[in-house]
């Protein structure tokens, strides 16, 4: 209209065109610029606070269990100020509780960070490795490995390997069910995940009816989701996977921001959506496989934690992903501490606790208008 000279000069006065925009004063940039510096500073502040909180939670969890320790006992054990290998608190803390708590941290962090990344990728706040069927696929894979007696292959990493294959296959299955004509409708992906989840769980329950009692116990624990005292190699393995996953996902965090808003828009802004999809799905399959082989299917952590973090810190994945990881770790550590304390010396499967926290929270999310579902 501006370039076009026609149709008449009177048009300018009559169609009420915009007055020429006033020159933008440069001063106002300062406000936002300092705020942006604040944003980066806020990142470090929040991460620092979360790290401190995590350390606090570890100490808290060390203290409780079947045998509650006094602060004095805890302190002396932590500082190695007592001597002798028969020192009970020291054995409890360093040989039993600490590895288990660390495992809880890793498992919770893995679930939460994959949940956060998957939610952005699928553009649906309900996604997590459990809902998308990755967890149950991994558990089924591990069950098959166990049933075939192949747990000891690959230097004892047979079960995680089977779990990874199971999780990977299930996500490929979910993906190919949902994908049609080169498009990936996200609600269909979620639906396919729910179905694969149900089928895999059914197959595992079928396996419980034909397995020998020793294996049966393990499979039932996988179905329920439970933590136990891990072996050191397992701990190191999961820790290493988690670290690599965090780095890979953080490098895609801006792309995830864009994808969370819309795939076409993200691609038009230069996001390689296929690469991000591959990265997130692969990371999810590996992490979930590793996690499920040691702890079974723990639901809700992956879904609930990212929501909590979003409410507190906003949706920017550069902050959301690492804070979710630490938050998920804290949640699972504390839930596991509750699980091994309330009915001590027996234990509740930690999946029960997380579901009891997650279920009501899920309902709360559905009933508030904070988020819109399937709008």
């Amino acid at each position, binding site marked *: *209209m501006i370039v076009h000279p026609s149709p008449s000069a009177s048009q300018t006065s009559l*169609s009420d065109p915009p007055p020429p*925009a006033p020159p933008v004063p440069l001063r106002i940039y300062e406000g936002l610029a300092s705020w942006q510096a604040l944003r980066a500073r806020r990142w470090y502040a929040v991460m620092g606070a979360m790290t401190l909180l995590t350390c606090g939670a570890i100490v808290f969890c060390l203290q409780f269990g079947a045998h509650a320790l006094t602060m004095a006992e805890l302190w002396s054990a932590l500082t190695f100020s007592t001597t002798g290998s028969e020192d009970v608190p020291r054995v409890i803390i360093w040989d039993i509780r600490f590895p288990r708590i660390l495992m809880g941290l890793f498992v919770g962090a893995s679930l939460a960070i994959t949940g956060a990344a998957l939610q952005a990728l699928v553009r649906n706040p309900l996604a997590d490795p459990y809902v998308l069927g990755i967890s149950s696929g991994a558990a089924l894979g591990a069950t098959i490995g166990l049933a075939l007696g192949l747990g000891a292959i690959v230097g004892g990493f047979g079960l995680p390997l089977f779990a990874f294959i199971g999780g990977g296959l299930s996500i490929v299955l979910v993906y190919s069910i949902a994908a049609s*004509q080169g498009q990936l409708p996200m609600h269909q992906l979620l639906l396919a995940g729910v179905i694969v989840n149900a089928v895999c769980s059914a197959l595992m329950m079928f396996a419980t009816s034909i397995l020998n009692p020793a294996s049966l116990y393990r499979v039932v624990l996988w179905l329920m989701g439970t933590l136990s005292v891990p072996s050191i190699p397992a701990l190191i393995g999961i820790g290493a996977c988690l670290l690599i996953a965090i780095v890979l996902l953080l490098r895609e965090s801006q792309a995830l921001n864009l994808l969370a*808003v*819309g795939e*076409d828009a993200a*691609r038009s802004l230069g996001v390689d959506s296929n690469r991000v999809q591959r990265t997130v799905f692969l990371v999810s399959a590996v992490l979930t496989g590793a996690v499920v082989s040691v702890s079974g299917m723990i639901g809700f952590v992956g879904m609930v934690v990212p929501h909590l973090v979003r409410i507190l810190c906003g949706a920017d994945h550069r902050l959301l992903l690492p804070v979710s990881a630490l938050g998920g770790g804290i949640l699972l550590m504390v839930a596991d501490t509750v699980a091994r304390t309330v009915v001590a010396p027996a234990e509740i499967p930690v999946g029960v606790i997380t579901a009891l926290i997650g279920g009501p929270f899920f309902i709360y999310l559905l009933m508030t208008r904070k988020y819109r579902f399937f*709008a």
Partner: protein
Amino acid sequence: MSQQASVNAVVSPLPAFEVRQLSFRYDSVHCRPSSDRTAWVINEMEFTVRQGEIVGVIGPNGSGKSSLLKLLAKLVRPQEGAIHLFGSDLGTLSRESISRQVAYMPQDLSYDFPFSVLDMVLMGRFPHRRGGLWSLVGWEQQEDLAVAEEAMVQTDVRHLANRMITTLSAGERQRVLLARALAQAPRVLMLDEPTAHLDLNHQLDVCRILQQVHAQLQMTVLLVSHDINLASQYCDRILVMKQGTMVCIGPPQEVIHPQVLTEVYGCQVLVDEHPDTRLPRVSLPSQDRHQTVGISGML
């Protein structure tokens, strides 16, 4: 072209888009033979978008308007034909270089995630990021922020910078998206139904912003719209589509014609002049004068 060049000497002779023999269909396993041209979403289209003009794309539902925009943004690739963006073949341009030149504002976006308005607008700086190998999360630079802020001022969303996108009205969201597209600092702005679901006031807002940035930045604007009147008022030229083919392209005075619209939409329309601008205005006839072509054809 010569007319335009005389109006504005800085306009380069290279057209923003040059589309030749463009054909496209969505890949499907149940493909009909390629000789069956009805399966094609875009069918042998050929047109040119000059630099610095506002072109509106109109046509009935399913006529391929949105697909055309996606083709021009290289979100999908054509099976046949070629698109040239400022003289270079779109097929050989890298995703990054296209993203720095073309901003695409789609129709359907998800607002489930509580991003702040500033977050959203800064996303437009993604194609201009300078992330090193070791930058883990990659924060925006001061320069990105300045560009984002200018875009927010232009679209009048500066005061919303801290608000969550989930809490905004549809009109405000559309302005935020416009700010995001402007933050991209593109040469071409492509919009898919920018005024859909907006009330009159917000429609006017969006159109004014478009006119403003077009005037200030010499931006080429390509917009898909169902609102023929809006297109008529604000576009330099209008491209009319029907079933994946181009019916005609030209200034509103030539294209917004009862014959053309009846042929394309299949119903009778009245075209008169806008009382202010003298540009063509379309309205539907009242019930007693209503005759659809389909019914009269059957009779």
